[in-house]
């Protein structure tokens, strides 16, 4: 085990009206438990609004659960802030608008003292190359990039600190298919090379099939199905999973 989620729940409360008289609560996560084995990829699928992003933030310790806890294995994870990295669904709002690409990538290197001062620039260029971006983006601000370029800057930033666990929330959805395949190959390659563990959120089953060892299917904040990839693909139980698999293009996936 590298990370364990133990009976996690999250309730959001919306205050309404003067003095917050009317309260609405949303049970975004409802008693979720699972174990992530070291050096594996856990895929998370589920319909829009089922709580995937909320769960990802809780695991990354960016959000307090209402109840339950996240345990990590100290053998693998000593420095949580460095060893566990998250790549967010919405790249534009997760990048600092006032920081250029070079500074965005340099900052984590500096904070965690990963390279010598005179090697920073080289390292940053290496990171850009890794995610298939050109050198000429070096001095750009986030709003001066295309959607797919921003998404890859976020990936590069997470990889900069050589994490042990990478939480990816729809990391490639805004890239064209040719680049998607390249990024997936990169993830698979890094898993071997850096002995990474992934939590991979995606609504695309083809992507999950490509990278994951086991899968969790979420619905309305709960885990409704889990198991190894092959079992879920061959014997889906939930209507939602069945629909996803039955949808266009997925039939060939089964082969």
């Amino acid at each position, binding site marked *: 085990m590298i990370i364990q989620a133990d009976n996690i729940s999250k309730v959001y409360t919306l205050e309404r009206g003067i003095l917050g008289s009317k309260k609405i609560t949303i049970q975004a996560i409802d008693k979720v438990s699972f174990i992530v084995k070291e050096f594996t990829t856990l895929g998370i699928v589920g319909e*829009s609004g089922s709580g995937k992003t909320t769960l990802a933030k809780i695991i990354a310790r960016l959000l307090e659960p209402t109840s339950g806890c996240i345990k990590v294995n100290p053998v693998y994870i000593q420095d949580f802030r460095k060893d566990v990295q998250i790549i967010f669904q919405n790249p534009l709002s997760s990048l600092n608008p006032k920081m250029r690409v070079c500074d965005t990538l340099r900052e984590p290197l500096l904070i965690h003292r990963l390279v010598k001062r005179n090697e920073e620039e080289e390292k940053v260029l290496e990171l850009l190359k890794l995610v298939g971006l050109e050198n000429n983006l070096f001095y750009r601000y986030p709003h001066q990039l295309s*959607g797919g370029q921003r998404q890859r800057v976020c990936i590069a930033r997470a990889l900069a600190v050589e994490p042990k666990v990478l939480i990816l929330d729809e990391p490639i959805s805004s890239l064209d298919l040719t680049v998607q395949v390249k990024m997936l190959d990169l993830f698979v390659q890094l898993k071997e090379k850096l002995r990474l563990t992934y939590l991979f959120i995606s*609504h695309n089953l083809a992507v999950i099939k490509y990278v994951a060892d086991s899968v969790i299917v979420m619905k309305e904040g709960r885990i409704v199905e889990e198991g190894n990839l092959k079992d879920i693909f061959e014997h889906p139980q939930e209507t939602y999973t069945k629909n996803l698999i039955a949808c266009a293009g997925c039939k060939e996936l089964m082969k």
Partner: protein
Amino acid sequence: MQRPLLEVKDLAVDFIVSGQKIEAVKKISFSVFAQETVVIAGESGSGKTVSCLALTKLLPANAHIRCGEVLFRGRNLVSFSEQALQAIRGSKIAYCFQEPTSYLNPVYTIEEQIKEVLWFCQHIKGKQARNYAIHLLEQVKIKEPLRVLTSYPHQLSGGMNQRVFLAMGLAGRPELFIADEPTTALDVTIEQEILKLLMDLKKEYNFALLFITHNLAIARKIAQRVYIMHQGLIVEEKKTEELFSNPEHQHAKELIAAYEKIGKI
């Protein structure tokens, strides 16, 4: 012959970054006829978003339309004042942007934002506007429309925001609807429903659709014609079926190969 609703001629957009010129869009020409569905596909960074923003001059300050015309119903929008363009955006030409969470206004609730569009474009307000907003959210398959209406954008999930944005675009009843990757945060089951909805609404309200996507599967499903962009240029223009049966440019071939391969990803 009938004239196109939108006719773009030799449009070029440059950016200036630290004193250097970047030619993001290099003299492209394309057209959209009334009630037609046209897809612009192409790799990341090829200039799809910038081209669309340039149509109604929604570009950032460091951008510059170097040359070209954007004829909408025969009138050149490039020469329009900001004020004149504001009257067109939303009501005549509506957008659904690529990253909705960053374009929705964080300090207003969804209800306030949809109502504003309804008032501005259709002069509907009050209870009637609220009911119409609920109807729109239901159309884009939002499960709890009442809760979503009272929420702020950061209180919704990625896929919910994407659909809210789509609903806002549709609220303006535009003549041309420009949707930039509007389904990337949605799974195939909802994506199919949204595409069907767009097709149905197109029939009902007779708008033309300019759809930006990197996914040729979508192009095949909805478009009459496809333009392929590559490094700021349009490198191929074809009827959809022709593109699939006989792609010519190398990049078009690559995109189709990736599409054929999706089953094997």
